[in-house]
């Protein structure tokens, strides 16, 4: 490659790097966003378990492994806040994803086509939803490392570069420690790609060995299992949803009225179809594509189609038969894997129609890529700054994170007040009452001194109205005047806080974050 070619190749690279800022700019908001996973990535940065367990039931295959926080932990160790570290991890995920795609495709498609594909990948609704709707750091990093692995393998096939295979191997090993369920799909894709497209035995061997190493590294944690609270087969995507344009922070619910954005985006469909048309046209013309192009495109088309089909209900028997549903929480997570071949097909448009390399056309296609995703580049931000850990988690399905609860006893006013902030992690199925009780412990016998039972936020925010990820604050006050007037010492009081079903009195179970105590109420002490 001569110097001119070398400098030309940088245009796509710089376009991905500079224009990609649109994808990650929302993550620079000075706070965090109220995604479906709430503050869980922030809380789990400093947890020590092999699989994240704060606010979620640890599961080896579906959960977030320690590798999820590998980027964030050094920053936290250096004194940076957990929120900033997680945000930076998301930003790096976008950049890795875009540049990985570019580096993978550049040798085959050339600079501008690879640049286009890289940008498409960064701005794909699936990627944006993973970050700004779900707030799932694990899945975002899987999307980031997937193209990096492909780029490493591709360069190793072409150049036999040790550093390239090194990057691919390390990325793959890292992937296994992020989310083994999705990792299995990524590795399968890479394996089949090398087997069917590149047909390079040495690379296949590297993938195989790496897979064995990755699985062995998981061996000690094989028993970490938790039943999913999601019924897998109820969450298949409806075909029309792949073409939708709605965008909101909403949890996935069964049925066709699901509010979660499943669309693949205008660019994937539009550019992808043009690519397929141009490819079809080129097969009948004398101009020949470089060797292996057809095989490459066939593989991408097949992979994209198959993986997309796996998100639809018609694939349910296959999931059930293979037991692969055990690997993912939702079937639509497979679209994260499908995103890469779909972006490749869309980005191939400029390669298959060289006229589009005209500066104006190319700039126009890049602009269309950003414009088509621009409305999605915002989210429900919050400037709430949580503590290092939540106080407790309510509900068997880990429904509610209690972010903050502080009791203030005021002797002058003879009151006890609790200020709480909480975040729903699941849609609530009942309008639970809040109970707040002052309990006196006298020689082992407990006595309720004062109590409050109410709907949250003066009845304005019943539990079923809580949006998943939303941070809600409220204050409850108990009148302790009788207690104080009897001359008793308020330091003996403890306070119970929780939620209960007002029709039958049953309480939501609560797990205290630090002590791990399971009970039907949270016990607090005043100051």
């Amino acid at each position, binding site marked *: 490659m001569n110097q*001119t070619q070398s*400098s*030309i190749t*940088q*245009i796509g690279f*710089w*376009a991905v790097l*500079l*224009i990609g*800022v*649109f994808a990650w*700019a*929302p*993550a*620079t*908001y*000075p*706070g965090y966003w109220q995604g479906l996973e709430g503050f869980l990535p922030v809380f789990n940065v400093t947890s020590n378990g092999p699989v994240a367990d704060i606010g979620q039931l640890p599961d080896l295959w579906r959960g977030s492994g320690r590798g999820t926080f590998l980027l964030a932990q050094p920053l936290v160790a250096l004194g940076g806040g957990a929120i900033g570290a997680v945000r930076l991890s998301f930003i790096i995920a976008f950049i890795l994803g875009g540049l990985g795609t570019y580096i993978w495709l550049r040798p085959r498609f050339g600079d501008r086509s690879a640049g286009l594909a890289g940008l498409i990948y960064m701005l794909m609704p699936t990627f944006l939803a993973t970050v700004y709707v779900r707030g799932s750091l694990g899945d975002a990093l899987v999307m980031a490392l997937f193209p990096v692995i492909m780029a490493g393998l591709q360069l190793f096939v072409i150049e036999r570069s040790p550093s390239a295979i090194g990057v691919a191997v390390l990325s793959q090993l890292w992937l296994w420690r992020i989310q083994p369920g999705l990792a299995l799909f990524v590795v399968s894709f890479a394996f089949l790609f090398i087997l069917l497209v590149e047909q390079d035995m040495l690379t296949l061997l590297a993938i195989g060995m790496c897979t064995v190493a990755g699985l062995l590294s998981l061996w000690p944690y094989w028993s970490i299992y938790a039943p999913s609270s999601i019924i897998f087969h109820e969450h298949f995507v409806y075909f029309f949803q792949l073409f939708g344009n709605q965008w909101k922070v909403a949890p996935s619910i069964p049925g066709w009225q699901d509010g979660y954005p499943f669309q693949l985006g205008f660019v994937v469909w539009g550019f992808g179809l043009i690519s397929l048309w141009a490819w079809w046209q080129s097969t009948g013309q004398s101009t020949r594509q470089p060797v292996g192009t057809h095989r490459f495109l066939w593989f991408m088309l097949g992979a994209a189609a198959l993986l997309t089909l796996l998100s639809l209900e018609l694939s349910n028997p296959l999931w059930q038969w293979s037991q692969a549903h055990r690997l993912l929480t939702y079937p639509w997570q497979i679209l994260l894997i499908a995103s890469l071949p779909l972006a490749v097909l869309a980005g191939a448009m400029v390669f298959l129609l060289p006229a589009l390399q*005209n*500066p*104006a*056309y*190319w*700039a*126009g296609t*890049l*602009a*269309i890529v*950003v*414009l088509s995703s*621009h*409305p999605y*580049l*915002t989210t429900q*931000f919050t*400037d709430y700054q949580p503590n290092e850990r939540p106080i407790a988690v309510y509900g068997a399905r880990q429904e509610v994170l209690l972010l903050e609860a502080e009791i203030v006893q005021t002797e002058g006013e003879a009151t006890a007040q609790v200020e709480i902030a909480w975040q729903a992690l699941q849609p609530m199925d009942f309008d639970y009452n809040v109970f707040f009780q002052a309990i006196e412990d006298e020689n082992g016998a407990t006595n309720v001194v004062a109590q409050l039972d109410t709907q949250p936020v003066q009845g304005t925010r019943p539990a079923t109205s809580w949006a998943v990820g939303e941070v809600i604050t409220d204050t409850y006050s108990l009148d302790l005047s009788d207690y104080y007037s009897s001359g008793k010492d308020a330091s003996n009081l403890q306070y119970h806080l929780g939620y209960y079903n007002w029709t039958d009195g049953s309480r939501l179970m609560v797990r205290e974050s630090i002590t791990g105590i399971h009970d039907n109420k949270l016990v607090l002490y005043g100051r």
Partner: protein
Amino acid sequence: MGDKAQKSTVIHNQVHNDIHNNESRERDSLFWLTLAFTVFAIAPFLLPGYFWGANDARHHVYFLFEFDRVFQDGVWWPRWSPDFAFGYGYPFFNIYGPFSHFLAQFLFRGLNLSYTGAIEMVFVLSILGSAASMYLFVRSWMGRQAGMVSALVYVYAPYHLLDLYVRANLAESMAFVWLPLALWTARNAIRTQAFRWVLGLSLSLAGLLMTSQLVTLLFAPLFGLYLLIVWIHYTPVKPWVDLNVPGWTRILPWVKSMLAPGLGLLGALGVSCIFWLPMVLERNDVRVDQWFDGRYGYQSNFVYFFQLFSPTWDFGVSVLGPDDRFSFQLGVVPIILSIVGLLLIWQRTPQIGEPLRWELLTFVAVGVGTTLVMLQPLALLWELPVIGGVLGAAQFPWRWLTPATLCFSVLSGLVMHPILTPIEQKATSSQLTFPLFVTIAVIILGSYPLLQVNIIEPAEGPVSLVGLMRFQRSSDELTGSTRWVKEIPTWSPMAEYYESQAQANPDGPIEPVNSKVDYSVLDYDQETGFVIDSLAHNTIMEEVWYFAGTDDRRIIYEHFYYPGWRAYLLDGEHGEPVEELEIIPEEQGTLGRMTVPVPKGEGHVLLRYEDTPPRRVGRNVSLVAIGALLMSGLVMSLRKQL
């Protein structure tokens, strides 16, 4: 010179010849097509009704209302707005660029448009003018297609649309017209030294200064740097090249090459002297604390990085913090076209030539620089002595989006630079090619969702004096005061008078007050009393007859004091001034009203708003400058014919 360098020079010259040939052709269809494509930006102004929901939409209607009130009283250069501050008056156009409202006044009276229609028409003209000026500027060095792209990016840039539809800032929108014109004329003045460019530079800079002094300050760093770069790179003589030649023979021609732009600058200062000299010298007599402290302080108005890229777009004023719904986006299309254009053109550096490269670098540096200074991490710069002063002129950091938008619009045109055009398309480089069409479509569609105005009914009722009073009370706007005012009023007898008229007859006309004398001081004691009767009154004068039983009586006027107000004792009713009376700003109370001590006995007093020495000097300098420019133009024209 090697083969490669020779080849580059040849290509460079070819490109410039292409551009020059294109430019010199008489019919430029792309220019008209560019203007035609602004129709999508203009269309919202053609909706029935008026966009009262925009931030300053009301202000400009009432600016015009006041402008016309004074104009109707025979003042051709209004400086005093008699009904602002609830009727106590404010020297608004003495400190605020009046150009847009001159234009609006012309449309209002000349074309018999309504107040709102005239203001909307000025907005429309600003859109057309900004497209035309950017087209002309970019066409002169990048060709017609690039000119069209830059012009449309300039019109449809989110910040420009924000100025138009959300902020409804007439002066800043109109300033968008002058910025490219100033760059264009300055560039050509240096390169050609021709008088027409001197004239153009004078008028465009004077126009800018008289449109918005704020934008002039924001534009100054870019203009200065650009002038310097063009001067260094387009002047044939380079004093630093042949150091063996004596210093003065090297430096003199180089300095002489700055004569044309220097004259242009002087001409601009001369033509606009009528505005800027009083503005500078009398600005301190106006209170500005309410516009720069607290919520208006720059410290709490920095832009967050993500906001530069956010799709958020909403009506309303900017609020503090990152959850502001006010849009600060740079725009998808301007950013992408600029980046791609730069990346592509940079590869061909040898072909585009050193001067063009430096010109582009100027726009990159200023575009990026002005974007960065809006962000909190560079807040430190705002604290520095000189730089902080320049930056602080913006009041709100996000106002630096004006030069940033200008720079990114210029750079956007690069994607259609002739050097990037394939050889087979060279012949059509002045036509609407398909790549150009696609680019235009992307530019317009990229901003299409933003092309909307907020048309609502005015809460204060139709445009009238009572409407003005109600607006001031509900919004605390248009309540500026002079430095003698200790407390900004919240209501006034004049406002009460208008409101009572409206209450008595809701659909009837609202008549202006026929006197602004405070009659509460009257005393009917036959010996020591004090009686006043207004004989004539308009927006800038009042003549009264008085009888003062003692020599310590003062006439109190319901006007804030400000330089220019003068009082005279007349030799009879409607007579000639025989003695100037002292005006003493009220010592008691908080309003700083004018009081005029009158001699004992009976007499006639005239209070009149006049030109101060700075205003007279400014006016005369402007007349001389305009005369000199016209004369020079005539002489040049005659010399050419001879």
